[in-house]
């Protein structure tokens, strides 16, 4: 049965929306298992979100309307990115031309920025701490992101994510060329920094000495907090999907709008995202968090890697 393009597009967004909490929960449980604990149940994030929707929203004194609007803005912008990237299909859907990979990055940044702005709005010290740190480190990782995008875009002579994935699929030589490999590793480091994983930040604790992302959401409560949590899970899944479907493993996507291949693409997508998540869980348990002032070393390391990827591409023949 042939699905309408709009239906496939809506299905992409729905899949990301509904499956991202599963991804979070699975990663948390996997990490706990690696540490020898039993860990929370895989569906725990759903229960958390549902619970939070039933609570009341409180806003600190002096916060403006933006404080309540920011979670909605962030959630919506995170959900717009699955329209642009190859989630289920390997051909672009109608709204897929709305933005290229830089546009997708811009929208993701918009979401993060609105949360940071709302945190600065609250006049609470922890929230402002988190907000300033997040903005600074976000700015520091930008050169690496740009260089990675340049490297991949120059390899594939396009910056549309669908086309990038297509070129990578075209031949094995294309997929294992050195510049591509180094760009993929650099992007892995970027995702690590953006989703707040070790060694940049401890994902699960609220240690104020090192909090970056968690501190921004300190003052939110109720449905707003639910949207923020869900939104960060969606952002995590989106980044994993970009890493898997554009850089590392662009196979298993549906080739047509037939119902069968499209539905088959859903568990394959979940499998790939869980695979990436497993790598992150292992990394989390293998290294320790960097001191806050040493995070710049990590950022420069990622930048050096992405710069070397571009150098190898242009001047290294590959």
């Amino acid at each position, binding site marked *: 049965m042939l699905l309408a393009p709009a239906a496939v597009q809506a299905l992409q967004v729905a899949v990301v929306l509904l499956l991202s909490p599963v991804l979070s929960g699975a990663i948390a449980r996997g990490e706990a298992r690696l540490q020898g604990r039993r860990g929370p149940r895989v569906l725990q994030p759903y229960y958390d979100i549902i619970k939070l929707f039933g609570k009341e929203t409180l806003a600190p004194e002096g916060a403006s309307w933006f404080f309540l609007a920011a979670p909605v803005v962030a959630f919506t912008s995170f959900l717009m990115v699955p329209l642009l990237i190859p989630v289920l299909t390997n051909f672009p859907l109608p709204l897929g031309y709305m933005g290229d990979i830089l546009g997708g990055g811009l929208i993701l940044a918009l979401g993060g920025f609105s949360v940071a702005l709302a945190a600065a709005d609250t006049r609470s010290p922890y929230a402002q701490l988190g907000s300033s740190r997040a903005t600074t480190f976000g700015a520091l990782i930008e050169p690496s992101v740009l260089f990675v995008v340049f490297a991949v875009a*120059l*390899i*594939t*002579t396009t910056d549309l994510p669908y086309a990038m994935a297509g070129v990578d699929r075209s*031949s094995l*030589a*294309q997929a*294992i*060329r*050195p510049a591509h*490999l*180094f760009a993929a590793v650099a992007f892995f480091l970027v995702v690590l920094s953006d989703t707040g994983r070790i060694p940049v930040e401890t994902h699960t604790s609220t240690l104020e000495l090192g909090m970056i992302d968690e501190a921004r959401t300190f003052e939110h409560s109720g449905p707003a907090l639910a949207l923020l949590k869900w939104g960060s899970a969606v952002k995590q899944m989106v980044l994993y999907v970009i890493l898997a479907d554009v850089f590392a493993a662009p196979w298993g996507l549906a080739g047509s709008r037939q119902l069968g291949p499209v539905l088959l693409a859903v568990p394959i997508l979940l499998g790939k995202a869980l695979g990436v998540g497993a790598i992150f869980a292992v990394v989390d348990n293998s290294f320790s968090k960097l001191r806050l002032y*040493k995070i*710049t*070393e990590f*950022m*420069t*390391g990622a*930048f*050096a*890697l992405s*710069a*070397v990827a571009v*150098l*190898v*591409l*242009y*001047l*290294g*023949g*590959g």
Partner: protein
Amino acid sequence: MLRYLVAAVPTPPSTFAGVTEALAVLVLLLVFVMLREALLRSQVRLYALQSLAVSALAGVLAASQHAAELYVLAGLSFVLKVVVVPAVVLHLLGEAEVDLAGSHRFGVATMVLVGVVASVFGFLAIGDVHLNPAGPGGLPVPALSAATATVLVSFVLVMFRADVVSQVVGFFSMENGVSVASLVLAARMPLILEVSFLFDLLVAALAFGVIMRAHHRRAASLSTETLDQLRG
């Protein structure tokens, strides 16, 4: 140079060229990691890992050319540079329990950025030297750019770190860069010359180790902060 900026490179390199380029760049990336590394044993282990990459490069070249002498060179380079030289250095420093945190003259991020600039310079400089692309019997020319960048970043390591172990490891990683370059340029050099180069490196490692130990015995530290009395 501008012509590089205009055209992208859509055609991927062959598998052989890709693997060798990846290994050569791995050698370069390990020098960047050395820039950060503070503990002396980790520095020496990084050097061992780097020498492993160089030996692997020699092995890949031997496999593609079916040259017996290159296998011998790869094996000898493995034994000497991955096993013997790190063991010698670590043994001679066995009595030094102090680690070297805090021997950076500038911050790590600054050093890495300077290293990136140096690598760019190295890559661009080799691009302007016209070598025959089908280098007689050697690795593809792009590995030479990575080797030159390795040499330059090793100089950065020697200049910007104020302890003897980092400086020695910087010298050794510069030798690794020169080895990769000679695999590109002079891969079929008579074996006797290559073997003498390797043994010479071993002798130099011994001398470095002896002087490092003497310094440690006198100054009770591995830092070069005290080595600044002779001026003018």
